[in-house]
């Protein structure tokens, strides 16, 4: 039974079509795995009943030869996608009782292709974080452990639950969201594939907002081809979202088997000299470069001059937008409404918000409020937007010379849970490689490419031009092939 959970989506679809097993069996296998690994705390809400009834319908569709593109595939959904009739918390106490009466477009899209929802995954509160340590519903444990320690490790964040679920075979794919790296970084930490398409490719309707100009739905899978398959169903124009791009959804599967011979791969060598990057990461980077050269790709040195300002730029813009997006959480129409808050209107606001939000969220709202305040808006917010344009221009400039850009996903491997990163700034440095592509709205993928000295997965990141998911996946798949000899299954799974 447990072999069923190890299948890729493509293989599973083929097997289901050929009636090697049923959708019900596939769903049950996953539910069993979820039960076995409950301690990972990957799920906030398990929807086993829904999954089983969906599986039954899927089986009917196969028997009528009316199967849809993703019929019967068990998936997990990050808990910031509103799912109709199912608790949606965004990892927060504030929404711990919120049951939406509507569905997000992206989760609707994959549901319409026949996926089966196993549950809503754990995440950093309101998607703010890169460790899943800030969830109201507890930490998520990384299925991976270092070879030289028995400490529990973080799965990364904010899509920590989604990543742990896919990495630990508790789902075949999981919807995540990526604002500053929240799909790519946990993919790197958990040894799986994580991809964020071009900003505007996936609708944000029904996605609980963190930073509107950066948020984008992403996918976590165990191989690149599965990611391509899922994205084909997730992406698409939605008239309900003003920032949704009205462009056709490309055929992405074919990209996964194309050779990278003759492609121009950009490497910002100067970023290799940044502080705080593990030696293992540098080695992986170098090894990847060499392997690609051997495949016939051309490696070109590029400079992303303003990349070093990405972190401060992001940490002005994202909190600013978040401080405004989270102003609606006041307990009046939905969400937490603590006892004793009905004294007066100001008490209601203050008690609800002080009580309902965790530390990291409060911190970011404070920063956001500060940088938008009258005295500072020019110095910080407008300045950050100008810097954002410079970073955006850097990429455009680079893409006149190269097809994709190759950098690591994270500066380190997954760190220990008890490694209390008390200093928020240290925590923010986890995002240093993922933020630039977020600011520029570019498609990017993280693919496991090496194991660290103490046997933890490390991910390589490929960044493509706007709307070029095709070549992004193409190079990602190549990296996957180049390192297919490495075992990216966590020990014991």
């Amino acid at each position, binding site marked *: 039974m447990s072999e069923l959970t190890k299948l890729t989506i493509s293989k599973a679809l083929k097997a289901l079509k050929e009636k090697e097993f049923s959708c019900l069996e596939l769903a049950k296998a996953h539910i069993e795995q979820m039960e076995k690994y409950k301690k990972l705390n990957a799920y906030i809400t398990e929807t086993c009943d829904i999954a089983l009834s969906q599986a039954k319908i899927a089986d009917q569709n196969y028997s009528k030869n009316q199967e849809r593109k993703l019929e019967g595939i068990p998936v997990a959904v990050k808990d910031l996608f509103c799912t109709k009739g199912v608790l949606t918390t965004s990892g927060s106490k504030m929404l711990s009782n919120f049951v939406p*009466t509507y569905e997000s477009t992206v989760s609707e899209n994959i549901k319409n292709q026949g996926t089966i929802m196993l549950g809503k995954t754990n995440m950093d509160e309101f998607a703010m974080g890169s460790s899943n340590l800030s969830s109201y519903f507890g930490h998520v444990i990384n299925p991976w452990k270092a070879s030289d320690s028995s400490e529990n490790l973080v799965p990364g964040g904010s899509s920590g639950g989604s990543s742990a679920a896919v990495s630990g075979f508790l789902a075949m794919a999981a919807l995540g969201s990526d604002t500053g790296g929240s799909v790519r970084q946990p993919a790197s930490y958990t040894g799986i594939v994580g991809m964020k398409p071009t900003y505007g490719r996936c609708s944000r309707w029904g996605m609980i907002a963190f930073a509107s100009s950066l948020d984008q739905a992403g996918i976590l899978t165990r191989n690149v081809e599965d990611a391509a398959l899922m994205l084909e169903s997730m992406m698409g124009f939605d008239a309900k979202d003003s920032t949704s791009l009205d462009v056709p959804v490309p055929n992405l599967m074919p990209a996964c088997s194309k050779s990278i011979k003759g492609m121009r791969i950009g490497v910002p060598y100067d970023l290799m000299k940044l502080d705080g990057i593990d030696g293992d990461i540098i080695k992986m980077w170098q090894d990847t470069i060499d392997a690609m050269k051997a495949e016939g790709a051309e490696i070109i040195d590029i400079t992303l001059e303003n990349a070093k300002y990405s972190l401060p730029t992001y940490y002005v813009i994202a909190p600013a937008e978040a401080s405004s997006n989270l102003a609606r959480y006041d307990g009046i129409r939905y969400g937490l409404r603590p006892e004793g808050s009905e004294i007066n209107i100001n008490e209601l606001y203050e008690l609800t918000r002080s009580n309902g939000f965790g530390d990291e969220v*409060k911190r970011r709202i404070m920063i956001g409020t500060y940088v938008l305040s009258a005295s500072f808006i020019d110095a910080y917010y407008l300045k950050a937007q100008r810097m954002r344009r410079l970073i955006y221009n850097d990429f455009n400039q680079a893409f006149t010379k190269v097809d994709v850009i190759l950098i690591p996903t994270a500066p380190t491997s997954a760190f220990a849970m008890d490694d209390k990163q008390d200093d928020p700034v240290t925590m923010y440095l986890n995002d240093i490689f993922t933020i630039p592509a977020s600011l520029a709205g570019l498609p990017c993928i993280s693919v496991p490419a090496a194991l660290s000295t103490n046997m933890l997965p490390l991910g390589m990141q490929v960044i493509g031009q706007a709307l070029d998911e095709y070549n992004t996946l193409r190079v990602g798949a190549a990296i996957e092939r180049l390192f297919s000899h490495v075992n990216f299954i966590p020990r014991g799974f």
Partner: protein
Amino acid sequence: MITKDEVNKIAKLAKFNFDEKEISHFQTQLVNIMSMIDVLTQIDCSKIEPLTSVCNMNQRMREDVVTESDIRQELFANTSGENAKLAKEINCFIVPKVVE
């Protein structure tokens, strides 16, 4: 250097209720984070246009037709607290009396 007073002002704007300890805690953290951000103030990009969106397009507009209907049941499905029941009955959101 962000003063305790400024931290208090920001907290009030964001509708947070912090005690002395929390104010201190956030003050330290804000100072820390702002010093990371402050590098931005040293760069001159006055000649650069701010980038508000990576979407290279203009705001789409919709036709002036009524597409939504009465969804009062849905609207009040998630009200909670001691007045939730009353809110559902009268189909109004309830708050403590606001004095203008």
